[in-house]
């Protein structure tokens, strides 16, 4: 089987080449940059497998995938890319962690036939550098822990420097995260930071009123109104209309 390695660090490339040769692969070349990889793929027949590192000296391997169609099986290698790893797991795409563990490499080789070829049509590679949003939080509840699905969350709020989750059962739980962090890791289509103190769930918006500012109520708390801060009004309307 023929293989190429796209890897910018020389020793890492050499080690992978050696490991692959031990398993009777024919390593055609080691390419060190996005530019060189694109040129090589343009001029040569595509190999059976491409091993590619995510971070390269002049960009990421996703730049290669966006510019050319590769008719090979692709295995990603990475040292530490949190978001990409989450995305790989989410899409069940194979990858190897660096330092590359021989056992894991063997396991991957043994199931070589099941690896997908190409796959740029189904996948938006740009999104692999973005975070994957969280779907639930673990909080303490009595003497045990409770999993709170974000779908059941009315809103998050902060008070006296602490952050709480308020659920649709109207219960509040302390959570060990700042609102900024929560805003960052929750789905921005569903959750919106309406002001300094609240992040609300679109699903439970019951009523939106516009007077001097926008206020809204969440379905089972009709008496309470939440004000959208002036600076967020425009963004809010955009988000709410989506």
């Amino acid at each position, binding site marked *: 089987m023929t293989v190429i390695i796209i890897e910018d660090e020389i020793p890492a490339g050499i080690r992978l080449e050696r490991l692959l040769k031990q398993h009777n692969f024919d390593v055609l070349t080691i390419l060190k940059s996005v530019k060189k990889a694109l040129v090589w793929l343009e001029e040569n027949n595509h190999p059976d497998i491409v091993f590619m590192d995510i971070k390269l000296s002049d960009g990421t391997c996703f730049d290669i995938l966006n510019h050319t169609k590769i008719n090979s099986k692709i295995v990603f290698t990475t040292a*530490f890319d949190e978001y990409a790893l989450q995305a790989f797991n989410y899409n069940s795409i194979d990858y190897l962690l660096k330092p590359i*563990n021989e056992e894991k490499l063997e396991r991957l080789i043994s199931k070589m036939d099941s690896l997908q070829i190409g796959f740029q049509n189904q996948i938006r590679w740009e999104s692999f550098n973005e975070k994957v949003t969280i779907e639930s939080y673990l909080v*303490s509840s*009595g003497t045990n*822990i409770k999993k709170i699905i974000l779908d059941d969350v009315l809103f998050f709020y902060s008070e006296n420097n*602490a952050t709480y989750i308020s659920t649709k059962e109207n219960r509040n739980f302390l959570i*060990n995260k700042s609102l900024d962090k929560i805003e960052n890791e929750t789905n921005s289509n569903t959750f919106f930071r309406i002001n300094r103190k609240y992040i609300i769930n679109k699903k439970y918006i019951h009523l939106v009123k516009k007077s001097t500012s926008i206020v809204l109520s969440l379905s089972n708390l009709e008496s309470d109104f939440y004000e959208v801060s002036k600076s967020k009004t425009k963004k809010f309307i955009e988000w709410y209309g989506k």
Partner: protein
Amino acid sequence: MVLFKKFSILVFLPFIVISLIEILSRSSFSEFQAVFLGIFSIGFFSIVSLNSVYVADYFLKKKFSFFKKSSLLILTTFISVFLFSYLLNNMLRSSDYRITTIFSQATLGVCIFLLEYLVMSVLDKKETKLVEFHDRKQVYVFLLSLIIFVEFALFFLISSRDASNLYPFLMNNKLILIYMFISSIVSFFTIRLLTYMKCNTILNVFLSSLGSMFFSLLFTVVLTQTKFTLNKHFGIYLIIYLISLFSTLFIYVFLLYKMQIREKNVLNFKLTQKNAQYLELKNQINPHFLFNNLNTLISFIEDNPQKAIEFGHNLSNVYRHYLSNHTDDFVNLKTELNFIKEYLEIYKAKFENGFTFIITNEVDSNAFILSVSIQEIIDNIFKHNCLDEDNPLSIKIQIEHNFLVISNSILPKKADFSNNTGLDNINKRYELLVNRSIVINTIGDEFIVKLPILEIES
């Protein structure tokens, strides 16, 4: 001086109010009654205020538990008022008093003491925050029923003679009972309304009690269709107002108390977070760990390349773990044990036969544990025990009855000193987050730490 100021206000203000009320409400006054009332109310309020100012100050400085402090305070107040009332009645009215009167006066003393204490602690607080209504509805229903019960019990104690009269007493005082019932509910809602309108503590209590009195009176009159005449005895208004004031204060104190507990919990919670994050960070950048292990790695490269590869993998996995669950409180036990295995493998590579370890495989994938806790315990073991090849240290990690049991043989280092801060911190986090404790035990020559395993509630 501040204490004295409080004390004089608390003695003379009620004295003046009571004298005014008495003068206004009574047409004729015998000299004896006036003297008795004067002495009694001055004495009564000085004793109660003495308790709520000086004695309370004395006890609060002591390091007793909250429960012990409050019961001691209430007991001293009760006894001192009881003695005072007993002596005064003996001296001045020799015969026509009953023990129940003294008893009820002492009870009243305790109530007034509590009231004064509350007012002072509210006044002492520099920043006043609005109370919150975050609890479940049942809590408030329970609170209101409790108030009605306490009010009735007090009313019964103060006015009635003995328990056999309970039924006729109930029948005679239907109106008061209905009033109590309505006033507690109305007080609750006026407080809620005024809080919504952002009234602060003093104004809120004052307006709520007045509002509660006015509306409750109105409701009672309308509901029971009693004929109501304004020119009734002034004292009855006082009693009615006191009932409303009592309900209002009771509710308000409860809300303040709840708020305080919540604030305390939040602070503790933040503290544990900071602790855990500190540990996490400490692990991430621990230079000793990193350079020692790089050193080991280099020496393996020279004389055992295969081992160097394994060691490098373990090291990289351990660091990957450090960097992955940075801020989560709860981590999956299975993942955590995999990490611990690799962590121990690093030590194993360095100390070879200096220790042995066993880690259980039977882990439920639904089991969770507090982050960093196991590693902290392992670090503790290595910190306090010798690694001797002739007598290797043994470490076992097993599961027993919903506890993760980490045990090791004791081979103490010479001149070892431990203040157990590591274990204390883990325990504190367990208590604050899930209200459970870890178990620390020495059985024979084994040191055992048990960590509660957490499960996700369905």
